[in-house]
């Protein structure tokens, strides 16, 4: 089975984002960057599906600055076979990413593309659905279970109210939710081996895709801070407070 997994380099999820004083964005200088957590889950799922299907290939793709190469190496160390880095000077929005991925899908013909459900920097949550729309493929978003059989993929989705299972004709798009799997750590030997795996360098122009941004960020500010509250000494004080607020009788 051939799988394509797009991975994004983002601010590590443990780092508290700091808004720049000039309001132009979040400060990304000298902070730890990592693979988007949902994309780690996507790589893990691809590895498991390749194993179950008895072979095949996993191609990972990242679009962004040259340093996204590190993120691709991480994916290769986890077990992906080959990487494509599309270097873009400017930030590429989900629609642009989806168009680049559409072009890569045309070249690679994967059976399944697995993306994260959202990138935790911009929290857009669009790319997988957009790619599915552009390709005219089925989409199984927010997946907590993925099963491939007989030219179809059954995807259990985390939805408001519970779970829903859909069946999609392959090729198809899946986006991962947190409970799909526990991603593995890359072992040291595999990190060494990953350095020798093929990584192709491309640009958006190679694919003839216009990635000019449609959105303009006018400013970025910190959200309103909550005022410090009070610490009560015991349950009786808490009950009194709740009563004073009319929450408890």
């Amino acid at each position, binding site marked *: 089975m051939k799988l394509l997994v797009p991975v994004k380099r983002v601010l590590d999820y443990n780092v508290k984002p700091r808004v720049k004083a000039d309001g132009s964005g979040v400060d990304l200088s000298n902070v730890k960057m990592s693979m988007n957590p949902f994309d780690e889950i996507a790589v893990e799922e691809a590895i498991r599906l390749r194993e179950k299907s008895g072979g095949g290939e996993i191609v990972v793709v990242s679009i962004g600055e040259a340093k996204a190469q590190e993120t691709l190496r991480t994916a290769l160390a986890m077990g992906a076979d080959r990487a494509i880095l599309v270097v873009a000077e400017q930030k590429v929005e989900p629609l642009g990413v989806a168009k680049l991925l559409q072009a890569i899908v045309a070249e690679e013909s994967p059976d399944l593309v697995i993306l994260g459900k959202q990138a935790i920097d*911009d929290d857009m*949550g669009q790319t997988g*659905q957009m790619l599915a729309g*552009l390709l005219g493929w089925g989409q199984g978003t927010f997946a907590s279970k993925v099963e491939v059989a007989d030219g179809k993929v059954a995807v259990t989705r985390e939805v408001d109210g519970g779970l829903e*299972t*859909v069946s999609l004709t392959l090729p198809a798009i899946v986006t991962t939710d947190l409970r799909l799997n526990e991603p593995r750590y890359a072992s040291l030997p595999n990190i060494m081996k990953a350095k020798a795996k093929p990584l192709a360098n491309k640009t958006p122009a190679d694919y003839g895709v216009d990635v000019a941004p449609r959105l303009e960020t006018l400013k970025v500010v910190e959200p309103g801070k909550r005022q410090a509250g009070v610490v009560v000494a015991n*349950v009786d004080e*808490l009950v009194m407070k709740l009563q004073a*607020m009319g929450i408890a*009788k």
Partner: protein
Amino acid sequence: MKTLVWVEHDGGAVKDATLAAVTAAAKLGEVHLLVAGQGVDGVAQAAASIAGVGKVHVADDAAYAHALAENVAPLAADLMGHHDAFVVPATTTGRNIAPRVAALIDVQQVSDILSVEGPDTFTRPIYAGNAIATVRTRDAKLVVTVRTTAFAKADAQGGTGTVEAVSSTGDKSLSSHVSSEMAENARPELTSAKIIVSGGRALGSGEKFAELIEPLADKLGAGIGASRAAVDAGYVPNDYQVGQTGKIVAPEVYVAVGISGAIQHLAGMKDSKVIVAINKDADAPIFQVADIGLVGDLFTLIPELTSKL
């Protein structure tokens, strides 16, 4: 500007999330609705009586019975030929459909808007709500999803919309619905509950979660939520998760029990009016956002609190 709001419904009633999307759409211009489903006469009538609504486009077909994005998106994309903005509540179903529509009409979607600042300008949270961006789109048409806690609900009554049937764009045969497993929950829905009691990893088991959190929630008439750690550990179903990647809630009162307050959890609840935190660690980050904190062991404090309420 002519807006088209996708109506979320359960086959019988219009869901509350739709009403917040209508409020957002009304800030942009005329409000028209899209009801897609099977056997949705009742929904269409209910939609037409939402205050301020104009035309209600109704597509009644088996292809729309489960709101599959593959079938709904082409329908919405067609209707966007004569609308300027597609406005969708940022629920799981809305977030599944909207970007597919955006791609079909070549628009860069603006996700999860918190406010409408102008005809092409919105605020939205980024980095799990640790920053708020003001963005302006250069696209000729808009596709936006709406954070439902950030907008008041439109009045479900008093509207005089007109219902108009639209023909089905058919089943694209890309996907089919197999089954749904909805969590049984007699409690208020999390996103509309006035009070929420949430439990974290500290509860230790599903039994303890039920034994301690449920009676407290009963006393307060509250909905029940959870941290991701509690959901991952299997104490409660996934539907309970509050946070960046779970439900976004903003009740009058949010009671966090044995929850540390990771930024991903805070992202889902820090707009609550009053936050109450109970945690044995006085340095837990949850206390930085709590209005009322109580430091101590939840296994003794919660039964005491429940009995004294």
